[in-house]
């Protein structure tokens, strides 16, 4: 389990992260969302023991990042947003080097390397030179490197940046698989659709402050407690808007386009069918009536102002 407690980082007069707290359990895939400069990378670097927090701490399975960083490092895999690979080194040699650093027993190393290569779908590239790999493959190799010591926590900082759509899809599937394997995964990104697909928990950060944190559904629900319906008509949009405002379960209605009405609604599907029937009964020519679901992007846009430190 990862417990992040009131993490704070100050650089001189600048507070990069102010009191970030959250808890994650095995299997959680945590999407860390924020604009560039919001404090995602600083938070991740503090958890990874690369940066010393000004105050606060984080505990990984009881090990404190400040008091016992070596123990924490044994349990985490960290993939930075930019990373370099050594020249003139083959894929298996690269992994073997890091397996040695992470004190994987010599006898087990070959098996471990084969396993992580299989998991990251790089088995065929075992004898290839790392500089000959595509960007997507290098990204997967870096992830394989993170996995050689079977870490509890994976910190992935912008893992999909610079990848083509296919490589992104493969990486998403891989991260989802790691979650299913019971690992805690923290993925930072500012590309929201990418996170919404496979994260079960998200945290939204702006100017170093965690604005929202929890399961995706809950956060979306909190942001938009009522249903939002979109009604399209052939004509008479203004009259229909006035009529809808007087109907049951309607909190508000306004025209959102030509002959298009946005309705704040608290009724269930039965009531929604009645609303449609009522409109038709009043001779309004309805084309469609559909629910407008909020997504992570809507929540993000609603919560944040776009300001950076």
């Amino acid at each position, binding site marked *: 389990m990862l417990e992040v407690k009131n993490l704070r980082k100050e650089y001189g007069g600048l507070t990069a992260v102010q009191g970030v707290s959250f808890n994650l359990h095995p299997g959680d895939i945590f999407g860390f969302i924020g604009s560039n400069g919001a404090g995602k990378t600083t938070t991740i670097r503090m958890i990874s023991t690369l940066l010393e927090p000004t105050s606060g701490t984080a505990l990984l399975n009881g090990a404190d990042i400040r008091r016992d960083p070596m123990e924490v490092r044994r349990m985490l895999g960290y993939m930075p947003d930019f990373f370099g690979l*050594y020249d003139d080194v083959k894929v298996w040699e690269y992994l073997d080097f890091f397996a040695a650093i*992470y004190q994987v027993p010599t006898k087990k190393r070959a098996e471990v390397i084969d396993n992580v290569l299989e998991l990251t779908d790089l088995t065929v590239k075992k004898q290839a030179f790392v500089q000959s790999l595509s960007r997507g493959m290098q990204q997967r190799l870096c992830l394989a490197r993170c996995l050689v010591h079977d870490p509890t926590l994976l910190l992935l900082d912008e893992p999909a940046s610079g990848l083509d759509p296919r490589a992104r899809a493969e990486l998403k599937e891989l991260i989802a698989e790691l979650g299913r394997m019971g690992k805690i995964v923290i993925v930072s990104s500012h590309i929201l659709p990418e996170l919404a697909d496979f994260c079960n928990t998200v945290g939204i950060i702006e100017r170093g402050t965690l604005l929202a944190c929890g399961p995706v559904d809950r956060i979306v629900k909190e942001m938009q407690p009522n249903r939002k319906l979109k009604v399209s008509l052939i004509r008479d949009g203004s009259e229909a808007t006035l009529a809808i405002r007087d109907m049951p379960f309607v909190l508000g209605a306004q025209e959102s386009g030509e002959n298009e009405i946005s309705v704040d609604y608290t009724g269930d599907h039965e009531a929604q069918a009645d609303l449609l029937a009522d409109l038709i009964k009043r001779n309004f020519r309805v084309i469609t009536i559909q629910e407008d679901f909020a997504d992570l992007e809507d929540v993000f846009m609603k919560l944040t102002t776009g300001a950076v430190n």
Partner: protein
Amino acid sequence: MLIEIHRFRRRYLTFSGGNTLNSAILAIVLVSYAGLILVVFSGKGNFPPLGIVMFQAVLITIFAPGMLHGAIAGERERRSWELLLVAPISNAQIVFGKFLGALAALGVAFGFLFVPIMFAAVTYLNTNWADLFQGELVSITFAVAICAFTLLISARVRRPFVALGVTLGSLAMILIVIPGMLSSLVGNISGAIEDEIWLLNPIYVLAKLLDHRRYDYGGAYDRGGLSNHVWGWPQIGVYLALSAVLLRWGVLTLKFAENDVKFLPKGQKEDA
């Protein structure tokens, strides 16, 4: 270590593509080495072994920074540094690992140069084995100090070429320029003061060891220089102590280097 051997083989012994230049450099080194062997063998009996030790010291002063300047700065430049910092190894382990790797490479270089030195020593008429032993130790400990110094500079900068420039520049200043300027400023100085000025220059030390067998079998050097006891062991002790201090400093530097913000220019640092 095995990976480093593989990398060396691929870089220098593949004779193809981008490695052709490396292979050519290795070929030049080998031809030069063969030339040295040839000169020593053909001048059998006339070649003072300490002369080759002096040549060795000059070579190592250039070779060691060339080999080690990217040890840490190179990791930073290629962005592989953070991957080492999050591994469960201490900063001291990182520095000493790099340092021992460099010493292993230096060991190979010393091993190659040991052949002509020993041949010259055996065939040279006036070989003083005690002086030769001290001279070799001066050369080795100086090489160790150079490695420690290069590692320290590499730990403190971000670009390998900056590390190389700063290291070679500093060595030139410390070993040649400053003592040379002091010598010329003081003017007509006694041998003792000149000796003090050049006390830590290994070439000067080796020259003294070579000279005192030739000209001075008694006490002080005939120009009124420092006692013969000043040359050899004191420098060995100083170089070793200096190495320890520089390595420790390098380890402490890494603690600061963890925070990349320290490397940002001032304006950007405030924006970060």
